[in-house]
Structure formats: structure tokens, C-alpha cells
């Protein structure tokens, strides 16, 4: 960044300096440090003395920059200290620029439910009462951004008054404010005075106001149905003028889009039955396409689709009474040219139009097959609106390089003619079956197949039939991977398709999908045809080929067999994640079946299977529901297995199978859990054998302190880890991210993607020593697509990763998290560290090193010890704290700095200077130490006090501070 300050436009030199440091930082970690330090500096500045509003503005700008740029080290919680100042700025800002920054900070950095938000009400009211457009605009924008119920009684009258303000912007914002407030106080839209204030704005000459009024009227029409008619009439009136070409220049494209959107939502039956709306929409479409205004075209098409299809079909029918010459062209004719384009955006536009248009308008009668078949006359369908080339062109989109376009194409084709997609699927499947190419080489083709299967599934309305059919398709694709290997490509695509697919995952779907996989395709079973299913949507579960009598015992229902490895991994991943949707009888069946299948697989496959079983039994009511055969099978497999981890999982199963309540307490019964999350849950159990064994290397014990015990922990982390009971409730927004991460991980009801990622990240250390296995592959797939990559990376560089442990801050933080997770109730955690502290304070062993690693713990001890030596002094430094620290750094001795906010002597910056004893001296030499306390003074000065164990060191440091 070579831009000088003078031309940068920065709000202050501090802002410029910070941006420069951050932008030129060598690494993200350095940048985060700068941002964190800046926030700390600001915190001190805000705490010290009252600031002028211009200073507050500048400081808030810097803080918002920190919040925006930070990758997680600066959060809204960490900026809470500035909220009072921001509210003060909103209230007392002398210029609108100051107020704007105050409002901006309140909108961006203050949590929605923060109590301090109430302090804004008075300022908002004052600004609304002012006659200045800028201030009114800021106040209204603030309410729109974060509406809250408490503000309503204070401002509602002012807002209603603002709807007739002379400024169009204020009018529009006032209407939007009413809509926003309705989200927190629905009664607003039931007030007649609100309706009366908004309705006249429909006809406002300013489009901005009219658009806001249209949006509000849609919401109001629920409580005031009488408002719907004038709204529709107004929209039709505007659209009529526009479509006749009389007012092209009078209306903007955005306004006409809003008119079409409103009509699409609120068109009544009377208007729908008129062909006038259809013709207006067609003319608007034609105009829009001519101007390359595809957004307006889309809204026109949407409006066309709202006209009853019978009316549209009759309008475009060739034998209609209306002469063809007087008819407007078919909507497809207006957009056909987009098919020839090479731009994928144009393809997307065409497909999005086609996806909205009713199928009867363009796909031809059901018998029409891709444009090549003989079309029969059907009064309810128009002939195929596309030529053969055009249909073929659309079919090529199924292989587009863009997944979005592929999926859209499949959705459209499935709606238009599922036979087309089905044939394509079958063709590719048989082609792959006979192909000699390696699975890796044709991995993308699997993805296409599964996408087709997903699209075909979506077309099946009966959820049970859809589940069975989906299972069939997944089996078919997985079977392409022959032999006892796991196809990474298929697994990845399958899990992703199941997760990202458009088909809704419901209870019947999951149940039938699961049972169909367990039963498998037996001889003589007719493969379910999607076209059959589509034709017979009413087919019941009883008539389905996979139907199984629920009274049949599980052992005879589902035969133990070696399922294709890839399919098994897909199965356990799916079942584990959707276990809460399974019926209890189905749960029992799956548990029994999986246990009986264990013996057919190697340990790498057995691990995810047993984890899935453990997750499932947590949903059972009673231990008796776990059959003896299941327990025996698992016990036998565990005994015979050579895998240490699998044995432990078996032990876990056996220990919990007799005490399901304990397992339920550990695994949230109502949560959707992936296999890695199950592992995390099990490992968080203090009594769990897995935690004891796999974490053994990380748990400090009193008898043998591990290497990690020498890793310096932050004092806050240390203090937190020692907390066994909460003495009092923490403030709502705790600034310590460590506490947040712990609570997120341990409170399953508050589970989120973020927390699960956090937890998974924590697992990496556990797996460092493992060789990557098929089981890992499944865990990774079930966890996240990205995790697979990270696991591969870990497997590739285990030693490197291990070597780094404790070497940098993230590693330390990770260790802190682990300590929290695994030993909340451990009495051993703090002891090694305490011993190190006491050892250092007595000057035993490597006490000098301990000073450096745990300075904050020792500062008060050192301060007290140095008092006895009589070497103490103090003085003023005409420079800020930062400068004092820089001077101390210049002494050339190792220093440790303790934050103002940390004990002891809170409110003062603490610096320890330690001079190593000469190497020639014996090992018992004690380091020379100087302890300096710095307190911020007024006008950039600071007071310092110093004590030292050595007079020479005292003089040296004093010189540095007095220069």
C-alpha cells in the first residue's frame, strides 16, 4: 500500500496507520494481532477520559474497520465497551456525519437484543422530530435495520406523519419502517390509520414511494382485503400504459418489475380470467427482451404463469377464434435466441424462464417425446414449442460445466418429460457398467448420475415411493464400484447429493430409503420404474416391491450380508444423520442388521458402522429393545478385531447398552448428528473409555506431567479451566471466545454448524497418529466436504503436524479447548501449572523460564520480593504507554507485558524485564528481574513505577524511561 496518508481519505492517522499495518501484515495471524491490539488500545482510550464526539467518531470508524476485517479475533462482543460511546454519539453528535457513524456502529456492532438499544429510543425520537432530512433518514434507517418492539409507542405517530413528508425518501423510508415494525408488532398492520396513511402513496409520483407502498399493501391486504382491489387496479393501470408503449420513458424498469411482482402475488380471480393481463405480460416480456432487461422478463414470465393455464392454452391454441396474426407471440419465441448463446448466464436466463412457465404451454402433450415423436392433438396441451435442435440443445445442458445449470435443466426436463431423463440415466448407467475406465477417471459421471436420480426422485410425489426409488438408484450407482473398495468419488457425490438435493427429507422417505437398502434387490424383484411411479402417484406402500410386513421378525426380514462397501458408508452416513426421523421399530431393525453385518467388514469399515449403531440406540426407549443377538455380535466382533479403536467403540456400546439414560444424557436425542459429531459427543464424556484412551496423551496427570504441561497457557484460560462451578452468571456477551466455544460444544441443544465445525477441528489432533482409513473417509464425508481434504492432509503430514503442537497460538488454543472438553471435572488439570508457578517463585530449577512463560501469575510475587531489595523508583514519562513499552524493548532485555485488564494491578500495564545470568556462572544463579508498572496519564503521558532485584538493572531501565 503506497498511498500516502494525505490522499488516502482515512478518517485519522490512527486509522491510516492501522490499515497500513494490517494490509501489509506478513500473515493473517499478524493482521489479527494488530486488529486485536488496536481494539485493546481503544478499550483503554474509551475507559480513561471522556472523549469529544469527533474523537468518538474516529474511534468508532477504526473499530468497525477492525470488526469488518477481522477473521474472528474481533467480534461484536469484544466491542461492547464502545456501545455507550456510540449511543452518546447518536445523541450528541454535532454533525450528521457523526450521527451517521454512531448509528452505523449501533446497527452493525450492537446485538439485536442488547439492552443498551433501549437507550437509542430517545435519540431516534428526537431525530424524527427534527426537520432535517438527513437526521430523519438516519433514524428511520436505524429502525428498519433493527426493529424492536419497545420503540413502537415512542415513534409510531411520528412515522405516520413522515409518510406525508415533502421528501420522497422520507416518505418511502417511513412506509418501509412501518413494514419493518410490523415484523415485531403485527398489530401495526391492523390499524386503520396505517392503511389510510399508506394507500394514497400507491399513486405517489415518486416511484420510490410508490414501490414502498406496493410492498406495504401486500402485507396490509391480509387484514384489509378491501385494499387489494385498488392495489390491483393501480398495477393493471400502470402495466397497461407501459405495455402499450405509451409510457416507456415514464416508468423505470424497477418500478414495472415491482408492478409485475405485486400482480403475481395479489392478482384476483376476476383479473386472472381476463386475457388482458396475459397480453400485457406478453408485451412487457417482448419489450424487456428487446432491451436485454432479463430481470423484467423474468417477472413478466412469472405473471404469465399466474394466469390460469386453460386461458393461456386457449389463447395460444392454433384453432382459436382469435386470428393468429392478431395474437402475441408465444413467450418461448421471445427467448429462444438465448439457447444459441455461449454464455452460461444466458443459458441460466433461458432455463429460469422455462422453469417458471407452465409445462402445458411448451412441453407438448405427454406423448411427445423430445420433439421427435408424433404429436397428437390434445386440447389441454399446446404443441411442443421447441424445435428438435432446441430440445437437443437443452439436453446438452445436463452436461454443463455449471452444476447450477445442470440441476435446473434436470428439474425442467423431469417436469416436462421424465422419460427423457430416465432414458439418459439408464444409458449412462449401462455405459459405465461396461466401461473399463477407472472410477477415479470417471468420477464426475457418477455425480451426473446421482443428480439425475435426485431430479427424478423429486418428481415422485409419494414420499415412501420416493424413498424406495432413491435407494434403488443409489444402490445402482454404488454397485458400479466393484470389489471391496470404497469409491471416494461415489461416496463424495452421494453424500453431497443427499444433502444438497432438492428432495425434501421426510419421515416416510428416510424410513423407506433405509429399509430398501437393508433388504436389497433380490431375484425377481421388479426394479421400480420412475415412470411407473410418476404414472401411479397414488401407489401405496403396500403395493411397493420393497414392502415388508412389519410383523415379520427383523432377523428374517433383513438378511445379514456384505453390502457394497461404498453403499454401506453412504447408508451409515445417511441413517446416522437422519436417525431422528426413523420409526422406533425401524431403529431396532437397523441396529440388529448393522450388528449382524459387522463381521463381513474390516475394522476400517466397522468403525463408522458401530458409531452409527451407538447413535441409534440412544434413540431407543429401553435397553431391552437391543436384542441379545446384537450385543453378542458386537461383543464377538470386538473380541476378534485387531483394531484398538474399534474395540473401544465396542466397549463403549457394551457399557452404554445397559444404561441408555447415560447415553441419552450424552447424545441429544432430538438433534441431527453426523458420525463425527457422535465421536465428539462420546469423547466429551469424562467417564468414557474412548476419551480416556484416545486422549490419554493429552491429559496432564499429577504423577507424570506431559510435555504439553509446559506449554504456556494464558491466564484467562488457566482461570477458566479451574472453574468448577459458576459463581455468578457471566455477562451475556462474554468476550472470551474460549468460553463460548466450550458452551457451544457442550450444549447440544444449541448445536450449530459453526460449533460442529469447531468440534471437528478439535478432533484433528486425536486423529493425527492414525492412518487414514475407509472409516475416516466416511467420517470425513459425513462431516463436511472440506474435512475430507483436511484429513487427507493430516494423514499425509502427521509428523509435521505433531511437531508443530504447542508451537503457535492456534495450537495452544486448541490445547486449551481440549483441556476444557475432556477434564471439566478432572482434579488434575491445574496442578502441574501451579507447581511450575510455585517452583519458579522459589527460584528452583528453571525458575527463570517460568517467569517468561507465566509472567502474570508471578508479577505480584516479584513485585513484593523486589521491595525487600530496596531497589525502587518512579517517574513521569511524557509519552503514551505504547511508547514506554517501546523504550523498554529498547533496553535489549527480554520483556513480558501483562495487559491492563489482567490482574494484578488492574488498570496498569505491567512489564517484567528479565536479564539472564551469565553463562559462566553456576546453574543456581538467579535471574535479575525488574518489574515496571505503567499507568496512563493525561495528554499522552504516563506514570511509571519500578522495582528490581538488581540495582544495575534498575538504573539501566530508568535511563531508558528518562531519555
Amino acid at each position, binding site marked *: 500500500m503506497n498511498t500516502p496518508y494525505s490522499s488516502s481519505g482515512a478518517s485519522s492517522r490512527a486509522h491510516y496507520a492501522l490499515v497500513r499495518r494490517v494490509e501489509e501484515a506478513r500473515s493473517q495471524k499478524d493482521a489479527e494481532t494488530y486488529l486485536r491490539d488496536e481494539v485493546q488500545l481503544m478499550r483503554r482510550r474509551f475507559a480513561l477520559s471522556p472523549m469529544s464526539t469527533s474523537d468518538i467518531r474516529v474511534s468508532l470508524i477504526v473499530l468497525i474497520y477492525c470488526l469488518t476485517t477481522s477473521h474472528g479475533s474481533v467480534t461484536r462482543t469484544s466491542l461492547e465497551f464502545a456501545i455507550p460511546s456510540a449511543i452518546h454519539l447518536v445523541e450528541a453528535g454535532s454533525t450528521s456525519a457523526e450521527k451517521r457513524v454512531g448509528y452505523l456502529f449501533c446497527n452493525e456492532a450492537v446485538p439485536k437484543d442488547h439492552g443498551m438499544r433501549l437507550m437509542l429510543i430517545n435519540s431516534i425520537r428526537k431525530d424524527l422530530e427534527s426537520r432535517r432530512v438527513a437526521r430523519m433518514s438516519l433514524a428511520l434507517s436505524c429502525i428498519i435495520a433493527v426493529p424492536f418492539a419497545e420503540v413502537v409507542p415512542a415513534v409510531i405517530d411520528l412515522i405516520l406523519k413522515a409518510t406525508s413528508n415533502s421528501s420522497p425518501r422520507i416518505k418511502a423510508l417511513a412506509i418501509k419502517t412501518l413494514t419493518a415494525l410490523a415484523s415485531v408488532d403485527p398489530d401495526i398492520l391492523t390499524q386503520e390509520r396505517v392503511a389510510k396513511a399508506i394507500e394514497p402513496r400507491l399513486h405517489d409520483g415518486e416511484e420510490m414511494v410508490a414501490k414502498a407502498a406496493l410492498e406495504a399493501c401486500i402485507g396490509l391486504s391480509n387484514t384489509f382485503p378491501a385494499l387489494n382491489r385498488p392495489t390491483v387496479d393501480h398495477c393493471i393501470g400502470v402495466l397497461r400504459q407501459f405495455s402499450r408503449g405509451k409510457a416507456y420513458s415514464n416508468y423505470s424498469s424497477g418500478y414495472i418489475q415491482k408492478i409485475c411482482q405485486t400482480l403475481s402475488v395479489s392478482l384476483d380471480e376476476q383479473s386472472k380470467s381476463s386475457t388482458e393481463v396475459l397480453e400485457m405480460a406478453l408485451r412487457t416480456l417482448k419489450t424487456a427482451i428487446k432491451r436485454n432487461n432479463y430481470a423484467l422478463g423474468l417477472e413478466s414470465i412469472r405473471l404469465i404463469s399466474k394466469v390460469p393455464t386453460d386461458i393461456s392454452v386457449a389463447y395460444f391454441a392454433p384453432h382459436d377464434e382469435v386470428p393468429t396474426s392478431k395474437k402475441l407471440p408465444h413467450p418461448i419465441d421471445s427467448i429462444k435466441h438465448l439457447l444459441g448463446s455461449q454464455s452460461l*448466464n444466458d443459458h441460466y436466463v433461458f432455463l429460469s424462464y422455462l422453469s417458471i412457465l407452465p409445462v402445458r404451454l411448451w412441453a407438448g402433450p405427454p406423448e411427445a417425446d423430445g420433439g421427435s415423436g408424433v404429436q397428437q392433438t390434445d386440447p389441454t396441451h399446446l404443441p411442443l414449442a421447441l424445435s428438435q435442435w432446441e430440445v437437443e440443445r437443452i439436453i446438452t445442458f445436463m452436461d454443463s460445466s455449471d452444476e447450477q445449470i445442470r440441476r435446473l435443466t434436470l428439474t425442467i426436463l423431469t417436469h416436462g418429460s421424465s422419460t427423457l431423463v430416465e432414458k439418459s440415466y439408464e444409458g449412462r448407467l449401462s455405459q459405465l457398467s461396461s466401461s473399463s475406465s477407472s472410477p477415479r477417471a470417471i468420477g464426475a459421471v457418477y455425480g451426473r448420475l446421482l443428480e439425475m436420480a435426485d431430479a427424478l426422485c423429486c418428481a415422485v410425489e409419494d414420499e415412501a415411493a420416493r424413498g424406495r426409488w432413491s435407494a434403488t438408484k443409489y444402490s445402482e450407482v454404488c454397485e458400479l464400484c466393484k470389489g471391496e473398495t470404497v469409491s471416494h468419488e461415489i461416496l463424495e457425490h452421494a453424500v453431497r447429493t443427499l444433502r444438497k438435493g432438492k428432495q425434501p427429507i421426510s419421515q416416510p422417505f428416510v424410513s423407506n430409503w433405509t429399509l430398501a437398502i437393508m433388504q436389497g434387490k433380490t431375484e425377481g424383484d421388479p426394479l421400480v420404474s420412475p415412470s411407473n411411479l410418476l404414472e401411479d402417484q397414488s401407489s401405496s406402500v403396500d403395493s411397493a416391491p420393497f414392502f415388508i410386513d412389519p410383523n415379520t421378525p427383523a432377523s428374517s426380514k433383513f438378511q445379514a450380508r456384505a453390502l457394497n462397501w461404498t453403499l454401506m458408508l453412504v447408508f451409515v452416513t445417511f441413517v446416522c444423520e437422519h436417525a431422528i426421523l426413523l420409526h422406533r421399530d425401524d431403529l431396532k431393525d437397523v441396529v440388529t442388521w448393522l450388528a449382524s453385518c459387522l463381521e463381513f467388514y474390516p475394522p476400517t469399515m466397522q468403525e463408522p458402522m458401530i458409531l452409527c449403531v451407538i447413535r441409534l440406540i440412544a434413540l431407543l426407549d429401553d435397553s431391552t429393545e437391543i436384542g441379545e443377538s446384537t450385543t453378542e455380535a458386537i461383543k464377538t466382533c470386538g473380541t476378534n478385531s485387531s483394531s484398538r479403536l474399534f474395540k473401544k467403540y465396542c466397549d463403549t456400546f457394551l457399557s452404554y447398552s445397559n444404561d441408555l439414560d447415560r447415553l441419552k444424557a450424552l447424545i441429544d436425542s432430538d438433534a441431527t448428528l453426523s458420525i463425527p459429531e457422535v465421536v465428539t459427543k462420546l469423547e466429551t464424556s469424562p467417564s468414557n473409555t474412548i476419551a480416556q484412551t484416545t486422549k490419554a496423551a493429552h491429559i496432564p496427570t499429577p504423577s507424570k506431567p506431559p510435555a504439553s504441561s509446559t506449554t504456556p497457557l494464558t491466564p484467562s484460560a488457566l482461570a477458566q479451566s479451574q472453574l468448577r462451578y459458576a459463581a455468578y452468571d457471566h455477562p451475556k456477551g462474554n468476550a472470551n471466545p474460549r468460553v463460548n466455544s466450550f458452551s457451544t460444544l457442550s450444549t447440544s441443544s444449541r448445536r450449530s454448524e459453526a460449533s460442529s465445525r469447531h468440534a471437528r477441528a478439535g478432533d484433528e489432533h486425536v486423529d493425527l497418529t492414525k492412518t487414514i482409513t475407509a472409516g475416516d473417509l466416511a467420517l470425513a464425508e459425513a462431516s463436511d466436504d472440506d474435512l475430507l481434504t483436511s484429513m487427507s492432509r493430516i494423514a499425509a503430514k502427521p509428523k509435521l503436524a505433531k511437531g508443530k503442537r504447542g508451537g503457535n497460538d492456534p495450537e495452544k488454543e486448541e490445547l486449551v479447548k481440549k483441556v476444557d472438553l475432556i477434564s471439566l471435572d478432572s482434579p488434575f488439570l491445574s496442578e502441574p501449572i501451579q507447581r511450575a508457578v510455585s517452583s519458579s517463585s522459589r527460584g528452583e530449577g528453571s525458575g527463570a523460564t517460568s517467569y517468561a512463560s507465566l509472567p502474570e501469575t508471578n508479577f505480584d510475587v516479584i513485585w513484593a520480593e523486589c521491595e525487600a531489595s530496596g531497589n525502587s523508583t518512579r517517574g513521569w514519562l511524557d509519552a503514551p504507554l505504547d511508547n514506554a513499552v517501546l523504550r523498554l524493548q529498547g533496553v535489549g532485555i527480554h520483556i513480558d507485558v501483562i495487559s491492563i485488564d489482567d490482574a494484578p494491578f488492574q488498570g496498569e500495564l505491567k512489564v517484567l524485564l528479565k536479564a539472564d545470568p551469565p553463562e559462566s556462572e553456576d546453574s543456581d544463579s538467579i535471574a535479575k528481574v525488574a518489574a515496571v508498572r505503567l499507568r496512563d496519564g493525561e495528554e499522552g503521558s504516563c506514570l511509571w513505577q519500578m522495582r528490581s532485584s538488581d540495582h544495575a538493572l534498575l538504573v539501566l531501565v530508568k535511563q531508558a524511561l528518562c531519555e
Partner: protein
Amino acid sequence: MIHAVLIFNTSGVPRLTKFYTPLRAESQPLLQKIFQLVSTRPASLCNFLDAPELQNLLGSKIGDEVRVVYRNYATLYFVFVVDGAESELGILDLIQVFVECLDRSFENVCELDLVFHFDDVHHILAQVIQGGLVLETNVDVIAQAVDEASLARKTSFLSANPLALGTGSGPRSSTLQTPLNWLTGKLGGIGAR
């Protein structure tokens, strides 16, 4: 509804983050996920993508369909996260409108303008979108509103600081590094990325 407006540079550093619905958790995982989704797409692909995986990270108001609409200009990605109620083609045009407004306000806007004048960028965005709904799409009207606000600020500043020589903060006119070279007049339509 528009749920988020984000600007990243090509290194993934967020230059503007504006969320119109409260998030379930901290924004960082969401930002990283969105940048990963967008930055890995080759330039030849379309500017729209469905992103159901963002549902867990976004606020509870988001509907079934989460869609990301983005455009890449020079070193910056402009990303809008919308739901099914919003026209993705309209949003693509809206990005262009937003960029033109920035360009007009900052005179050859560059990445550093977004860094040093993010309060102005927020202000311009507020002229275009309010509460997740489009307020104005006419570039001239928006530019006029921004100019009026700028003038009001200057007047306000002078009245509060009668002896001041400067005119307070405002868009600078000098050309800084890394100009985006937006030929906004030539970038109209869907084809621009």
C-alpha cells in the same frame, strides 16, 4: 428478501459486510463459506448458485431457497445472498447499480476507497437497499441522494466548526492504487462478471 451484501477482495478479505437478518452465530464461518463458494467458481460459469448449506449459518428468517448472486469486478467480489422471494436476475442488475453508484460517488472507485470510506459505502448501500428490500434502483436518483447527503454533511460540519478550513471527510478525488477500471457504462447487462 436480500439477507446479506458482501464485498470481498480476491484474497478473501471482507471489505463490506452487511447482514439484513440476524445471524445464528458469528459471521466468520459464513463469510469464509461464501467466499469459498464464490472464489472457486471459474469465470466462465454463471453468476448464480443455490447454497442450501448456508441455511444453518444464516438467520432463521431465511426460507428454503438460499441463493448466492455475485459479480467479480477486478479485485473485488460483490456477493448478495438472497432467498427465493427475490429475483436473482434483478439482483444481478442491482449489483451493477450498486457498483455504478460507488463508481460515481468515488470517481473511479478502487478497493482502498472501500477500506477508508466504508461509512460512505454503507451510506450508498442504504440508498439502494433498506431492511433487505430494494429501495431504489435508479443510479441518477441514488447519486443525487448521496450528493445531497454529502452536501448536508459539509454544511453541517461547517456550521458546527465555523473556523474550519476543510470540508470534513468525503469522497476523495485522487486516483489511488488498484483502480478497478470499471467501465461501468460498458458493463451493463448480464454478460458482465
